[in-house]
């Protein structure tokens, strides 16, 4: 994630536009730098001791800054802080191999707490978002395997010009897959209250045909009032 420019480097961020202070005015200025810290899950290949918390922080924060941030704002006693900067991947152009869109560098802080222990909470009920994505992928793959579906490829009707019989406006090809579900049943829902749009159209056609026949000429066909004239 690319941070906004004012959070990337402190020297680039603008101070808020304060009103001019005159003696007697209340003091609205807050001297608070753009420091932020974020708790991170410990990496799988580096198990942490129970007293240690892993943070990601603004790249310009020092160990003393982190310590005072936690002690003064959150009243957490820290014993030791280790910081490490992880360089972001430089993404290169596939052909010219010029560096385009580099990922930002990240700073991680391992904070050693004095009197407490911390365990990263279980937010995902034992699963990980990557697991869900994997499961979706697997589902898609299994749906396309032949045992579970029959695929019918029906090319669309090529509508030809009545005279030159050149293909004009071909209907798009359609692919139908009959998917056999494992544990579920599926019934196509009844959206049209038993009727079908094609039935309605047919009925209209029939009405038009019947209206022009002479038997029904006595029926007064009164067009709707056109307000335009009024």
């Amino acid at each position, binding site marked *: 994630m690319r941070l906004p420019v004012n959070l990337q480097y402190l020297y680039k961020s603008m101070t808020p536009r304060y009103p001019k202070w005159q003696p007697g005015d209340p003091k609205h200025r807050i001297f608070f730098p753009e420091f932020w810290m974020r708790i991170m899950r410990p990496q799988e290949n*580096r198990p942490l*001791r129970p*007293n240690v918390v892993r943070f990601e922080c603004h790249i310009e924060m020092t160990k003393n800054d982190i310590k005072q941030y936690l002690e003064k704002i959150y009243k957490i006693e820290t*014993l*030791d802080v280790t910081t490490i900067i992880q360089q972001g991947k430089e993404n290169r152009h596939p052909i010219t191999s010029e560096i385009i869109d580099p990922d930002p560098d990240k700073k991680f802080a*391992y904070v*050693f707490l004095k009197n407490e222990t911390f365990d990263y909470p279980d937010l995902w009920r034992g699963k990980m978002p990557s697991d869900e994505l994997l499961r979706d992928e697997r589902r898609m793959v299994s749906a396309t395997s032949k045992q579970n579906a029959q695929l019918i490829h029906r090319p669309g009707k090529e509508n030809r010009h009545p005279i030159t019989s050149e293909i004009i406006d071909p209907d798009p090809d359609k692919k139908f897959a009959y998917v056999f579900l494992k544990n579920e049943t599926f019934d196509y829902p009844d959206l049209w209250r038993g009727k079908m749009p094609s039935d309605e159209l047919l009925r209209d056609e029939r009405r038009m045909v019947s209206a022009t026949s002479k038997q029904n000429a006595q029926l007064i066909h009164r067009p709707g009032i056109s307000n335009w004239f009024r």
Partner: protein
Amino acid sequence: MVILHRTSTAYVGYRLILCRYKHRLNHPGVHIPHGVQYKTPHNLPDEYADHPLYPPIRPKYPPGSWGSMDPKKAWMHFELGEKHYRHLKSVKERLTIMAYQNMICYYDKLDVEQINSKLIWMLTGRPRSPRSLPFYKHITQTHVTDELPKFYEQMDVESLLNYVKPILIDRILTDEYAQKDDIPLEDMYDKGDYKVSSIMNEKKLKIDQQRTTNTLTKMIRTIINVLAEHKPHLRQALVGSDVPIEAWWSLNTNGSKYDRAKWHHDSDTTSFQFRDKAAVQVKTDKPLKSIVDPNSSLCQTPVPFCPYQAPSFKVFTDRYLPMQIPGHWHGEGHDFNLLSIYSMDSIYQHDSYFNEDELLPSLMSWIVNAGHAELLAQAYYLGFSMWREPTYPLIAQTIVSNRRQWIFGVYQLNTIAHFKPRDAYTTSNICWVSPIMNLYERIENGELVNFNDDVLRHLLRFLLNEPVEQPDWNLRPYVDDLTNLDERYKKFIRNLYEVVKLEKQDSREHHRWARVHHDTTVFNRRYAMMTTLFKDIVFDNYPREWYGRTLEKIERKKNMPLFKEYDLLLPVTR
């Protein structure tokens, strides 16, 4: 009728002709790896015998306790040990070979020779992170106890204390009020406007350390001079200051994944190197009395396992040669240490945010680490190694001091075989540590306030602890008698050790374009020179792996076998 097709005469001609120019660039400026390096499989011998010759059936594990190690690996280690002791008769050779085996020499993709030593986890005396005692205990396989054996308290110290006390107080005070000499030139002309605090701290640390060293050396020397009349072991004692202590060992990872600093023989182990300087060291000829019976229940209990890896305790890798130095070069001093003292000043410079609560475990881990390393190096000098356990326990007495605060420790080494898995341990090492004691609170008006006698009593007990040796003990069972070797062999051994002694270590300070392989190339080349000058001795005595690799890698003919092919190293006809 068979028709023979002439398949691609052009191709055949191509291969025959263009190989002539393999040594040149394929295209101006384009380097393609010269020469295809074929991995030659091992040549089984071509000897014909009438009846099939099978290797002898050997038991699953070699003699000794190996726990749950892979039997192939266990046999590999066993044979390594056998080779080590069969071919290398002197301790100096063993130390050199151990250092040399950590070097790698390879040719990178531009065909440039790269000589380097492999990575090792570097341990320092002072622990870099707080509360790292469980880690050091796990690495060195030690238990920390509270009980000192009785013979320390039975020593009569009072009269000596009363005699020595005023002399020592005098020494301490003279050092406190001693004039500062040798002001560096840059300080003389410094106006004093702005002083960078970190640089000032560093200078102060250096001065403090020198002062501590001087004071402690003086104290020890006065006590020894007083006692030398009555105690013969102190008459022959050697006292040294600023003594380097280094030790190397490899530890089994027991399943946890270490991605670097693996020992090249066994990828299940990581290697550690301890490096520190002792302020004062006193050396004697004979070993000290043991404090705990190696078969006691405390030694038999396994040490608690520390699942966290070295980087979480701020221990990092560096390229270094595995050295074993218990304070002296082999052959140039007495082999047993009576006492070694470390100066504690660096703790106050670097870890000033440690309270008193955190100080004691840090000092305890310092003592455990330093004692273990010292004794390990001693054991290697005495002929023991990771393949041959010490037949008697080795003892070290350690003090970490600040002239004001003192902490005492006694370490007993029972095992060296850390490369074996946890279930293979028969005993563990023991360390006794005292609480932190203040010799004096502060110095006021030329007097020490609240002088504590217990500290001096402990110190005197450590010095009076007489080393013991019975005439029928064999202190160096695995070292052969070298007096019968011819002069040329002795010269070779001496020169080989000099190669290690004059070796400054390499560390990754430069970028690749600026890296000049200062001393690792020197080491490699001197070793190669020694092995070629004394070729006949080497060919007669050393297995091919220990000298042949340089030659083979230069010819780029043969690679070291993979572990799965290890069985085929030696020919079938044995």
